[in-house]
């Protein structure tokens, strides 16, 4: 037997003596840290437990999202641990709050596997959100360096190539989601697709939960949708599409459905965010190899993106999804039925559509970031919008967006074609007004432009009369910390 424990040589370094020492002292806080170009940066909104020092809370977040565990481990000494430790380098109080802090944290690029969103997120949002010393935590923004972005494919098609394939430029695209969401037979479903496209829309869309249920198996839907799409294309001379949802229980099945969609001539397929990051990247790589536009429905995001003090800000999801390689993502409407402060939505759209980002605190963009030539992702505005809001939609969302009117097309009293035509005429007259220099966003001017167009177009007149009083005036939960704006509705 060797000697007793007390006779052994123990580590004498203050930092590596066994026990629990504050994270800040373990090296996870460095206010002098000079950020490297290749570092991945994260901004967290931290709400420490009462009595916990904000700097220590920030250091704990840095530690728990990188190399640390709750106690000192000597095996750290076998590694270049200074390099691998994430460093909290700045902590600012959140404006107008008493218990929240913005913590800036830098991560060495080598902590993350190239081209793997799953690996990046396993660190950044892995264990740390359940850490007891903080009562709430929200990932607000990230700066992904060029070095790491270059390991990702990015959008399979991107806005520019999508427009070239569709031969549609200079105005928002128009779409609609088939309603009712569930229960239609394949043949009835294809009817809705045909009517909407024939009436003037560019796209129809499967909803997030239309996969392959007993009332309509997926092949039935795909085949009838193609009949509707091709009929409408021949009737209008335009390229048309319908997002065929290839979401399924296994990745093999997703790809099987995607391959079938390609075989029967679809220009676009669709997946849900709930597929998971690895599956989304797989689908995006498949999409580029197969000349397919890939639409993403953000199913599930509000479970973690909506509350201001905890979860993940949607702008981070936008960044991750652009890296993952989807071409479309639902990103808010400003004026519709779903959550969305105008400044926050503008920030999401900028993240998806710009080639490089500059710090813009009112929009919630905390870092300069060059997108390293990754293609641009087309935002989709969907949920409770109608043609009477066209002046607001064009003003807030610009040209590179898909305006998706589900109820606002299918709910038209004179039928789906009339609903689609109302939307298309409203869009064309508003774009023409804007390009002609009209003050179209002015609440005195925009509605008058629509009303004038309605006098020449019965379906538009009917739609304007029906939905004129519909608006969703609720206060947003996710608002800018640096400016407060109410959502304007008419």
């Amino acid at each position, binding site marked *: 037997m060797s000697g007793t424990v007390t006779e052994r040589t123990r580590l004498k370094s203050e930092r590596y003596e066994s026990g629990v020492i504050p994270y800040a002292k373990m090296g996870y806080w460095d206010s002098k840290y000079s950020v490297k170009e290749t570092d991945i940066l994260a901004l967290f909104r931290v709400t420490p437990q009462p009595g916990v020092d904000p700097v220590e809370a920030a250091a704990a977040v840095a530690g728990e999202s990188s190399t640390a565990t709750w106690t000192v481990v000597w095996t750290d000494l076998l590694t270049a641990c200074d390099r691998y430790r994430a460093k909290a380098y700045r902590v600012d109080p959140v404006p107008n709050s008493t218990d929240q802090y913005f913590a800036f944290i830098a991560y060495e690029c080598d902590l993350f596997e190239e081209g793997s969103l799953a690996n990046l997120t396993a660190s950044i949002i892995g264990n740390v959100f359940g850490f007891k010393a903080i009562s709430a935590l929200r990932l607000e923004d990230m700066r992904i360096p060029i070095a790491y972005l270059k390991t990702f494919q990015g959008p399979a098609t991107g806005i*520019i190539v999508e*427009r070239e394939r569709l031969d549609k430029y200079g105005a928002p695209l128009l779409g609609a989601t088939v309603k009712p969401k569930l229960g239609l037979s394949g043949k009835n479903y294809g009817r809705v697709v045909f009517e909407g496209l024939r009436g003037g829309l560019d796209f129809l869309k499967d909803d997030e939960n239309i996969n392959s249920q007993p009332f309509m198996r997926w092949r039935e839907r795909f085949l009838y949708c193609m009949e509707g799409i091709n009929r409408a294309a021949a009737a209008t001379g335009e*390229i048309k599409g319908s997002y065929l949802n290839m979401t399924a229980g296994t990745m093999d099945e997703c790809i099987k459905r995607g391959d079938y969609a390609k*075989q029967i001539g679809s220009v676009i397929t669709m997946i849900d965010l709930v597929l998971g990051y690895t599956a989304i990247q797989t689908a995006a790589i498949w999409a580029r190899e197969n000349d397919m536009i890939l639409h993403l429905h953000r199913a599930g995001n509000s479970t973690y993106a909506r509350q201001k003090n905890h979860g993940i800000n949607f702008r981070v999801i936008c960044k991750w999804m652009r890296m993952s390689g989807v071409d479309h993502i639902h990103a808010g409407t400003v004026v519709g039925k779903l959550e969305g402060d105008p400044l926050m939505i503008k920030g999401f759209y900028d993240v998806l559509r710009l*080639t490089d980002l500059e710090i813009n605190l009112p929009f919630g963009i905390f870092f300069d970031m060059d997108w390293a030539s990754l293609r641009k992702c087309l935002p989709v505005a969907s949920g409770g919008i109608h043609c009477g809001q066209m002046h607001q939609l064009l003003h807030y969302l610009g040209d590179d967006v898909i305006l998706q009117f589900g109820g606002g097309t299918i709910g038209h009293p004179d039928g789906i074609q009339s609903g689609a035509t109302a939307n298309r*005429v409203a869009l064309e007259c508003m774009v023409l007004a804007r390009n*002609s*220099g009209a003050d179209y966003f002015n609440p005195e001017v925009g509605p008058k432009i629509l009303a004038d167009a309605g006098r*020449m177009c019965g379906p538009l007149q009917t739609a304007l009369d029906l939905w004129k009083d519909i608006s969703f005036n609720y206060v947003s939960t996710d608002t800018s910390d640096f400016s407060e704006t109410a959502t304007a509705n008419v």
Partner: protein
Amino acid sequence: MRLTQGMYSFIPDLTDAQIEANINYAIGKGYAMNVEWTDDPHPRNSYWDLWGLPLFDVKDAATVMYELKQAKKYTAQGYIRINAFDASYGVESCAMSFIVGRPDDEPGFYLERQEGAGRFIHYTIKSYCVQMYREGQRYA
């Protein structure tokens, strides 16, 4: 049928003043512009015939309007459109496209279905005019 390609096909045909307004909008954005025409407006006909090269550094809508007038005069009966191109980084593509001339009668397209194995159907969009007449005579 009415061919509904381009930015303005559901509203009445643009007047000269409205065309000019769009040209001025494009000039304001720094876009180059061109005039193209075709008598085969199949949705996947990517290359309409060019009426000259795109006009770069256009200062005045009159230049484009002149080319449009000439194109209307000298090209075969069919469709004419104006395209605008954005050369800036991140776009480098067409940024506007709208029809500014169309034939009085538009016979349109029909869908040919080739039945395959099982329920597979191969769809082909075909133009009545292209089927019936040679190039240059299709909308005469």
